[in-house]
């Protein structure tokens, strides 16, 4: 099936001369949760804004549901719901009025039953008559989600949905996002919380300085994450690895004081027991040992650093 979002050669240079996106290609599959990771100012919001029609692209094309976003803007925008990063809400309207307004804006006839369902799912029902300015930050975030869901979108963009949101609310939102995905909605979320991407996403894209430097299935990333290193601090310096240990993926650090063994924790056998036995037989003694796991965070920081 054709991807629900196809982005080809997308670039954006603002009038100020700042280039926010450099030739981005990206496909989002129907029904997946895609997490766009990147530091502040990487171009995440610009990318979303272009797809949603808020910012005009400099070059490149975007198709949503097979429609071009500028020529067929009615079709593409009807498919999309956007939850912006900032808590930009009206102040004086009631929750009910603002969510109903959003539905109308997207060209749909009033449907109180749907609005009621959305508000109940987001635990906003008892606040429906409250003025938005009386709500807490977390509640305002829910209102923004309710507005985005008011017109039953097929694609939902969540721009930093849990920034500044407490832990319990974050868990609630993840629950809501999962339910949406189960109902067939495609979800693209940006975040700089790796934990969030890890928890939620099917695929992860890493963007920095306007370039998508990595797009990977989360499972594949997790396998990379699954690598662990065992570091052995040796008693005596080694000049070279003995012949008998060549079968292991071992590395000797530059001063010959540390042996580093890389292994896969998800493998059935890590080979540690055998390695330690072989080391003893080779007469290599060690003072201490420790293990480290490369986290998604390390991968991410490495990637971002490489491109700088």
């Amino acid at each position, binding site marked *: 099936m054709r991807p629900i979002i196809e982005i080809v050669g997308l670039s954006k240079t*603002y009038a100020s001369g700042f280039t926010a996106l450099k030739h981005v290609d990206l496909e989002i599959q129907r029904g997946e949760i895609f997490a766009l990771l990147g530091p502040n100012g990487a171009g995440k919001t610009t990318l979303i804004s272009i797809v949603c029609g*808020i910012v*005009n692209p400099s070059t490149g094309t975007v198709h949503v549901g097979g429609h071009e976003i500028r020529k067929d803007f009615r079709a593409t925008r009807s498919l999309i719901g*956007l939850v912006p990063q900032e808590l930009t*809400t009206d102040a004086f*309207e009631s929750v009910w009025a603002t969510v109903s307004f959003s539905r109308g804006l997207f060209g749909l006839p009033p449907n109180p039953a749907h609005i009621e369902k959305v508000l109940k799912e987001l635990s906003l029902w008892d606040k429906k008559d409250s003025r938005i300015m009386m709500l807490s930050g977390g509640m305002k975030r829910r209102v923004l989600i309710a507005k985005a869901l008011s017109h039953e979108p097929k694609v939902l963009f969540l721009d930093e949905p849990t920034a500044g949101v407490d832990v319990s609310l974050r868990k609630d939102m993840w629950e809501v996002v999962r339910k949406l995905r189960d109902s067939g909605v495609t979800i693209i979320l940006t975040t700089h919380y790796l934990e969030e991407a890890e928890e939620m996403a099917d695929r992860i894209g890493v963007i920095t300085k306007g370039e998508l430097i990595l797009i990977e299935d989360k499972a594949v990333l997790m396998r990379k994450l699954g690598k662990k290193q065992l570091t052995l601090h040796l008693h005596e310096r080694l000049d070279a690895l003995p012949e008998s240990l060549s079968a292991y993926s071992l590395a000797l650090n530059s001063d010959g004081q540390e042996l580093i063994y890389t292994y896969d924790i998800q493998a059935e056998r890590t080979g540690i027991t055998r390695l330690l036995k072989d080391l003893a037989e080779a007469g290599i003694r060690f003072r201490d040992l420790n293990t480290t796991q490369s986290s998604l965070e390390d991968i991410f920081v490495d990637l971002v650093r490489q491109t700088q």
Partner: protein
Amino acid sequence: MNYHGMRAIYRFEMARTGRTLMQSIVSPVISTSLYFVVFGAAIGSRINQIEGVSYGAFIVPGLIMLTLLTQSIANASFGIYFPRFTGTIYELLSAPLSFIEILVGYVGAAASKSIILGLIILATAGFFVPLHIAHPFWMLAFLLLTSVAFSLFGFIIGIWADGFEKLQIIPLLIITPLTFLGGTFYSISVLPAPWNTIALFNPVVYLVSGFRWSFYEVADVSVVLSLFMTVAFLAICLAVVGWMFKTGYRLRN
């Protein structure tokens, strides 16, 4: 056409008027009443008739125009500037709405409000002076055209402005002087040369003159010219707004 979208914007804007009833309806009515008391009753009683119309009655069309212009601009400019200022405009820009539909929503609401206000002021005037409307159809036509044209103009200001100060500058520095010098309180024929000729460069003269003609059949310039100027101003505003949307000026950077 996204009718539901237009309706949503229109109703949202009208609801805003409802919430700020004091500021949007009551205050213009009070200030207009004050004009009547001062210019109509107090000073007007010492002024002879102008072209066969009592002074109090003569200023009614001018006063309605004064309110129409300032309120149309204020309403429409604030209506579109405020979402830009708070950031809620993201929703408007991401909605399946064409620029015509956005315009119909915002400008339609601003113009509706101005027309309602104009009619309220007309009714208020009825308490102070005997009203006479020679051409009700043309009166309504000028009311409608002027409200729409200046709401469009306000909309342009609301998109152009990048601060609350800029939002106020054009109404204060340009519109108010032009209105006061545009024959609101007098016929430009009473001006000495060369001011009566210079006055013809003031677009407001044509609006007030045409509107006044629809009441009393007295005019400074021909009615056809008034109508032409009003429509021309409307067309220019429409073209500017069209350009703004096409290029994404200050909206879709």
